[in-house]
């Protein structure tokens, strides 16, 4: 037996504010995830009221009756839990698609803690264990983070981590390929400045690979801090200069930059590109990783196909590595 549970991220289905709203669409996605070999789903915090019905605990309750009723709906689709919510503090929930507080503003701590606990409570009630947060603003917004800025972020995440620990939920700092943490050793500096007991690291293989950071090496370096894993693949990298393009979320991530990259993220499969999944999962096994592994495509023209192809790869290749049952060819 393994202490690892496998989930699949729902974000590839929820592509816009007016998609993935019907319960029937949720049901078909959850059943597809379940029969592909996953026992959990990862949700993303979204702000567009009732048109994003999985986006907040309130919307879950509004559509399904209560958070617990949503859990029963998942169970009816043979899904055991919501592994995690992914929350970016710059998203505001007071108004639809609103802007949230700036995590570099020391005065924002209280509001972010309040929101984090809102999600953590739902995660706990849905059988999950991790709140994944966007740990820092984008590189283009801040440039390399100063020691003072690292200190502000450390205070924020120490406070959030301690608060949600009371709900039995662990905090995982997530680093995407546009994050300011990619600059000037930001990941290591922030980890060093935060409380190892309450602030963990979420490794997202594709985001790191695009940023030119080897996820296997990063995991090995911080294995004792890693509380959450997201497995996805990528085929292109983005250097620091490109990541520093003003409004890079729009012009690089969405529009594809000067190279006009149409798709950044891919499901893990035996057609692997930048990410050495077998090496990564081998490292997880070596260090005795316990927790959720969330598989995702993030973007996909064919969500069911992505979940099923990734399911094959997990069942036939990755799980046997993790569980020590792989038979050499």
């Amino acid at each position, binding site marked *: 037996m393994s202490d690892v549970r496998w989930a699949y991220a729902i974000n590839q289905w929820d592509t816009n504010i007016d998609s993935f709203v019907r319960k*029937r669409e949720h049901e*078909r996605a959850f*059943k*597809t995830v*379940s*029969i*592909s*070999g996953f026992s959990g789903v990862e949700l993303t915090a979204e702000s567009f009221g009732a048109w994003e019905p999985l986006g907040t605990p309130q919307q879950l309750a509004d559509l399904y009756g209560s958070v617990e009723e949503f859990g029963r709906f998942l169970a009816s*689709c*043979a899904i055991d839990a919501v592994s995690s919510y992914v929350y970016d503090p710059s998203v505001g929930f007071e108004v639809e698609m609103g802007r949230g507080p700036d995590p570099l503003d020391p005065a924002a701590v209280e509001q972010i803690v309040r929101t984090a606990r809102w999600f953590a409570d739902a995660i706990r009630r849905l059988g999950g264990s991790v709140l994944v947060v966007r740990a820092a603003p984008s590189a283009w917004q801040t440039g390399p983070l100063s020691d003072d800025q690292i200190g502000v972020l450390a205070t924020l995440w120490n406070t959030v981590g301690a608060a949600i620990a009371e709900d039995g939920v662990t905090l995982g700092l997530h680093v995407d390929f546009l994050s300011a943490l990619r600059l000037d050793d930001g990941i290591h500096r922030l980890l060093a400045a935060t409380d190892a007991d309450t602030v963990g690291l979420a490794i997202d293989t594709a985001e790191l690979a695009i940023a030119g950071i080897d996820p296997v090496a990063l995991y090995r370096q911080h294995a004792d801090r890693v509380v959450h894993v997201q497995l996805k693949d990528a085929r292109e990298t983005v250097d620091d200069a490109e990541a520093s393009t003003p409004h890079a979320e729009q012009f690089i991530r969405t529009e594809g930059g000067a190279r006009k990259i149409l798709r950044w993220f891919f499901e893990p*499969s035996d*057609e692997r590109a930048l990410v050495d999944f077998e090496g990564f999962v081998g490292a997880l096994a070596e260090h005795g990783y316990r927790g959720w592994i969330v598989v995702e495509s993030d973007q996909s*023209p*064919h*969500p*069911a*196909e992505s*979940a*099923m*192809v990734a*399911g*094959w*790869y997990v*069942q*036939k290749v990755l799980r046997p590595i993790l569980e020590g049952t792989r038979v050499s060819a």
Partner: protein
Amino acid sequence: MTERPPIKWSYMDHWRANGPAGPYDQWQSKLAMKRFLQQVAAVGFDAIDTFDFRIWQIFEQYGSVANYQEFVQEQGLERIVNTFHGVYYSPDRYAPEVPATHGTILEDFQRTLDMWSGIQLDNIIVMPGSRYFDEAGVPDDGLKHAADIWGKVGELTQQYGVNLTCHHEFYAGIRTRDQIDRFYSYADPRYVKFFVDTAQHCIADVDPVDVYEAHHERVTGFHFKDTRHKDVNDDYRMFPDAEVSATTTEKWFYEMGTDEGLVDFEAMMRSVRDHGYSGWISVEHDKADKLGGDYAESTAISRWYAKNVLDGIYTEEVAR
């Protein structure tokens, strides 16, 4: 954990996906085939069925049928179980009701079985009658001629260890319950078997459970698929093929487990169990991509239903 019943699930290999150049199927490339097979295996199917008109593509891409089956097995599936013999029947050259064409039909099957002899199939599936676009359907003599040639073909296929088995499309000449019963009353049960397609029968207003129970002794396989519509407008008379040319219903077939499905799969599974059927059940949902549908998703949903609903029905009763 639910005990798995003595049933294995095979997927009939209809498939389309969209790529950069538009829609494609799994025969486009080895990569497309690998991804298709991985998806089928990932959701727990044990095997696939196919069409035998793919033979030339198999030779070109894989070298031999055995090589292709090996490729299937490398993706975690056991084997190829059944093949569907797709032929466009025409009274001047190839029609079961026309004795003058029977020599051609026999030669065709001899050639086909030789080409597929590199692997062991369970069934070769045929449409036992031509399409008859008038209300009368196949005349009684035609039923007898068809029964006669399929008996001869079945005797031939059994020399290869393969059953000749008949599949009744809702638009085909042998479609009503009366036609089906008469056809089997004329056909030699040793050589002419029956392949139950739950949706096709349902569309033709034939109860699939009832017709299975009437002929269960010669049933050698199933297509478990669903529909939301019966043919109440004589769509079966539409040329050339009501599955794709009916004007009132643009999509006939849905994966089992679909909402608003007309087939009672739980009753079907109970009947399968009670009649002691064990072995392969094939799942099919051809044209699943119509009206915005998605083959991959339909395949996942159907297998979810088999695992979470139908397997339990089979084993619960056995445990009593």
